[in-house]
């Protein structure tokens, strides 16, 4: 199942928007992720959290999409956080230095609660 096929959920929690990424994050997810970003930022959240717990295969195009999200966050002054990454994708986020530009948390609580505390 690709991300574009999956039911995308955007939730607002304590002023933080959580985007649940379900399925593969690849080129086919572009439109869905763009729509999710629009939903997530409509209410001016203090941060956007990407939930990778139900994400599947992430390829280089998916990495590029996440770079796009980071760029949008930077442009709008919205910090981006993430949780639910497998060790393998956490390694990829570190190798690509995505991890330098979004905080990676172990779970949703720490991601939401950490929003605003150390994000700049």
């Amino acid at each position, binding site marked *: 199942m690709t991300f574009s096929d999956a039911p995308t959920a955007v939730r607002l929690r304590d002023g933080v928007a959580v985007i649940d990424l379900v399925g593969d994050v690849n080129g086919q997810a572009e439109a869905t992720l763009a729509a999710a970003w629009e939903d997530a930022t409509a209410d001016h959240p203090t941060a956007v959290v990407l939930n990778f717990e139900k994400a599947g*295969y992430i390829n280089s195009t998916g990495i590029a999409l996440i770079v796009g999200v980071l760029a949008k966050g930077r442009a709008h002054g919205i910090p981006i956080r993430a949780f639910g990454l497998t060790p393998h994708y956490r390694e990829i986020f570190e190798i690509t230095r995505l991890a330098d530009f979004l905080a990676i948390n172990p779970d949703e609580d720490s991601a939401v609660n950490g929003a605003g505390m150390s994000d700049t």
Partner: protein
Amino acid sequence: MTTLTGSFRRRLLGRSAVGERASREDASLVAVPQDDLDPVDIAPNDPLLAYLQSASGAVDVEALELDSPALASLKAAGVKLAVPLVSQGELIGVLHLGPRRSEQDYSTDDKKLLENLAAQAAPALRVGQLVREQQAEAVTRQRFQQELEVAKLIQQNFLPKVLPDLPGWQVAAYYQPAREVGGDFYDVIPLPDGQVGFVIGDVTDKGVPAALVMAATRSVLRASAQRLVEPGTVLERVNEHLCPDMPEKMFVTCLYGVLEPASGRFRFANAGHDLPYVKTADGSVELRARGMPLGLMPGMRYEEKETVLEPGDSLLLHSDGVVEAHNPDREMFGFPRLKEAVAKYPGGSELIDLVITDLRAHTGPDAEQEDDITMVTLSRSPAAGSAFNGSGQSQQLVEFTVPSAEGNERMALERVSAIVAPLGLDEAKLKRLETAVGEATMNAMEHGNKYSADKPVTLRVLTERDLVRVQITDQGGAPSDREAELPDIELKLAGLQRPRGWGLFLITSMVDEAHETADGDLHTLELVMHLTAHKVDPAPGGSHDVQ
């Protein structure tokens, strides 16, 4: 009052006008008008049955006039009254009554009582009859099933438990019995001087008889192969052994070949079996040799031929269950299609998988398999040197293609992962290899083949002592400046570099080594992962050949 036995019910329905399940046995009737009477037989064409079928109630037997032997017998037996038992319009039995003990005639009330009784008894009797029929059918089915299990057991016990590990060769086999278990078999026989015998055969008939003949053939062939050298002579000897005891109308088709692994020489003889195919660099060719099936007549001679399986060649032995599989329009899969499959698909287990896929597409997913299906492939690894550094003897584990279509890299990485996982890569390295294979395949499909439908990407997995190589080949020729730009996330976030361009960076970061070559239109990226800890500098471009 009289009742009918269960056997009567079955016989009554046999050839009578009342039952549609016609012509089995003569009907018989148990009539007990008095305390102890002999059964009365009613022939299925006796007019009494038709009369009772249409009777509206109890029938006065003494007053009835019919040209009916059964009626005469009933009268002779002292039956006074016959009450038909009808269920759902079908005569399923008759109540026969002798004279009343009071010696008075049956009254109208008596008859009404009996008719009411018959109306209630008939459905119950029908249920009892159905239950008994089903029990009998269940016993028959169970016995049939047990016989099939025995046949399966015999066959499976005489098939090889393991296939030989021949350096530089891959042997794969597929055997799927039909529900009724045919007589397919195959065997791989170690022979003196490192030679290996390959057998595929098919016994006519099905079930236990075929399984027993198969077992005998296999045993005689094994024994003969050890003592004799030439395949034709072996088949002659087997034929002589089988002929005296072969059941009537049974025979065995069989191909027997002997491989010399070092040279690739393959000598073979054929006792009427479907011709094997060899995938060569020039396409697929049939291996022809003449000979009558085994067990038909003694004194047969078997032509012997030989060929050389070159590096990269793959031999397919198959049974007729493949080519004779029908589609819903009763068209057979056929030899031409199988020959074409051998030519276009990779050899070895991949060929088997793809032929089975084609076969299922041909027959339809829900079709019952008509006959046993057996395939054996013998593939010679491509010549050494196909490995890039030539540091050791590579053994090819698999070669397959994926169509150049968006998303197909997922298929490629999953297939490679399944093949590599048993080699002992730890979980983290396996995940890295998956990502590298996915990215390399995606690059090959997109940049190399431009997502052309007629240009698939070829993947090969090879292993050496302590490493695994994955070669991904596209048809885009020598690489130009694909992704020459080193991705920099800060530049990307600043909009000074495109968001994409991570593929090659990920590939080189994930594997221990990466090598890129081109040969004409073919461009190959080889990924190397050491089975033990040997991670090369993860920095892109570090010690990799790929820049």
